[in-house]
């Protein structure tokens, strides 16, 4: 390929990455620094840090960010505890011929839109929903139990939204684990718990780390769970941001600033976890010297 054609061949995707991926984030940063958007026609935009200042001034905004961070951490923890044994079971105890199908069964519900999954939870948990029907039928409760609009429900919805981000990296990590090390540990007399803590968990630590960061990022950005299953007491940062972009509110700089705050936090998480393996986590490739 001639040099000119080669340059063109590389330049087009570089331009796509710059405009389509970096561009929107930079546009968001720029508007977050504006006093008003859209500004008066013809006038040069006035820049300020007002939007970021009002984040510190209003307790409600900080509370919704903290709730988001907490709920995302909780959904990451719940997903990890649920997904680890499932990933382990499919990767280690299902015969290879059936493994793909078994994993597919676990994944299939997550092929659907998150809106549908949240709707499904509404049907399950509402006052006239399936669970209340079962409770009434069993004679456990005469009046409907209010299951929707609480923090627990939003948490369940978030786990149901982001679960796959945890399951798949964990599955890949357990699947990569060399089979003979567990047999060796067993032969040397390590019990099941000891094998788990000293062999399995360290060997899959990278999968846990990447699953956790992916799940946490996804959970931070989840809007539907709080919008459909939550109430006023469970407003998360995603709903706060969405409301600022609502019709005619004209508060785009504030919404953009909040978006940028969330982006900064999530980028810090990615960078932190990317740096983590070098510091704490042993290399997950099989080593010869031990």
């Amino acid at each position, binding site marked *: 390929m001639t040099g000119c054609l080669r340059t063109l061949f590389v330049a087009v995707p570089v331009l796509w990455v710059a405009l389509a*991926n970096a561009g929107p984030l930079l546009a968001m940063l720029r508007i977050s620094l504006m006093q008003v958007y859209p500004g008066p026609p013809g006038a040069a935009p006035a820049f300020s840090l007002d939007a970021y200042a009002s984040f510190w001034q209003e307790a409600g905004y900080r509370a919704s960010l903290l709730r988001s961070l907490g709920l995302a951490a909780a959904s990451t923890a719940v997903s990890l505890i649920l997904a680890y044994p499932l990933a382990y079971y499919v990767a280690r*105890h299902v015969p290879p011929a059936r493994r793909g199908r078994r994993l*597919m069964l676990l994944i299939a519900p997550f092929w659907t*839109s998150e809106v549908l999954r949240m709707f499904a939870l509404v049907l399950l948990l509402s006052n006239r929903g399936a669970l209340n029907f079962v409770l009434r039928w069993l004679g456990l409760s005469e009046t409907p139990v209010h299951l929707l609009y609480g923090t627990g429900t939003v948490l369940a919805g978030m786990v*149901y939204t982001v679960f796959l981000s945890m399951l798949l990296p964990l599955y890949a990590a357990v699947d990569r684990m060399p089979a003979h090390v567990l047999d060796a540990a067993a032969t040397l007399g390590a019990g099941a718990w000891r094998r788990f803590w000293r062999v399995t968990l360290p060997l899959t630590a990278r999968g846990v780390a990447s699953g956790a960061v992916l799940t946490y990022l996804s959970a931070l*950005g989840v809007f539907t769970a709080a919008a459909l299953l939550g109430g006023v007491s469970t407003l998360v940062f995603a709903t706060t941001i969405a409301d600022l972009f609502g019709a005619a509110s004209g508060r785009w700089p504030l919404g953009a600033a909040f978006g940028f705050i969330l982006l900064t936090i999530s980028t810090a998480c990615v960078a932190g976890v990317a740096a983590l393996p070098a510091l704490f986590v042993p290399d997950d490739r099989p080593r010869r010297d031990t």
Partner: protein
Amino acid sequence: MRAHSWLAGLYWAAVTISALPLGLIALTSLAQGSIVSFPLGPLGLHWYATAIHDPGFRSAFGLSVMLAAASAVLAVVAGSWIALAAGLVTRRWLRLVFLGGALLPLVTPGIVHAVALRISIAVIGLAPGPIAILLGHAIHATPYAVIMVGARRATLPVGQVEAARTLGADPIAAFIHVVLPWLRPALFGAGGLAALSSFDDFIRSFFLGGYNPTLPVLIFGRLRSGLTPEINAISTIVLLIACLVGAAVERLRPISGISASALG
């Protein structure tokens, strides 16, 4: 090794619990009454007939299908181009920056990505609507194609392209007759994944859409304005399509660390 029956029990419980709520949508869509309430009463296909004749559903359906197809094509072209061009970048750190930038939409939380795209279309003067959603979905799905096509490209036997060139093929002929056929499974896999993620996407469609909603946005709007049984029928149709596409995608492509909605 001994069979861990409690792990198997946990697995089947997880499969049941994660599928059960969705099964509930399908079940309640068969109720004939005008309120969704348990017990369901007589069953039938009444609400499906209503849904199929509902102009709102029909237009949302058409829009969602078109967006899925168009954004998948765009994402596969952009993603493959990025993956192949990255191979030509010789400096290691430049290649890492390029690929890192290409994967940026994967690590941007959904709401942030949607808002950033909403701002961008305003900046370039594009009105919310199908074109804006199309771009948003394609940008979101491009990293899937970068990863899948890049992984497939890495397994291309080095000698094949060289052999074609030695035998007189120009670079374009070598690309069409050697590289492209080798990439085909990754192209279809990534395309299916992109189509599914577009069909399922809510947050980008919600922020970038004009007056005509996509299916998830339509369902979201009607859920907010109160449950009608027609929504259950519509949702069941959407559910079945998503599962068919999902099953097709998984068949095209061995299950790997990166899959469908994992990175939603």
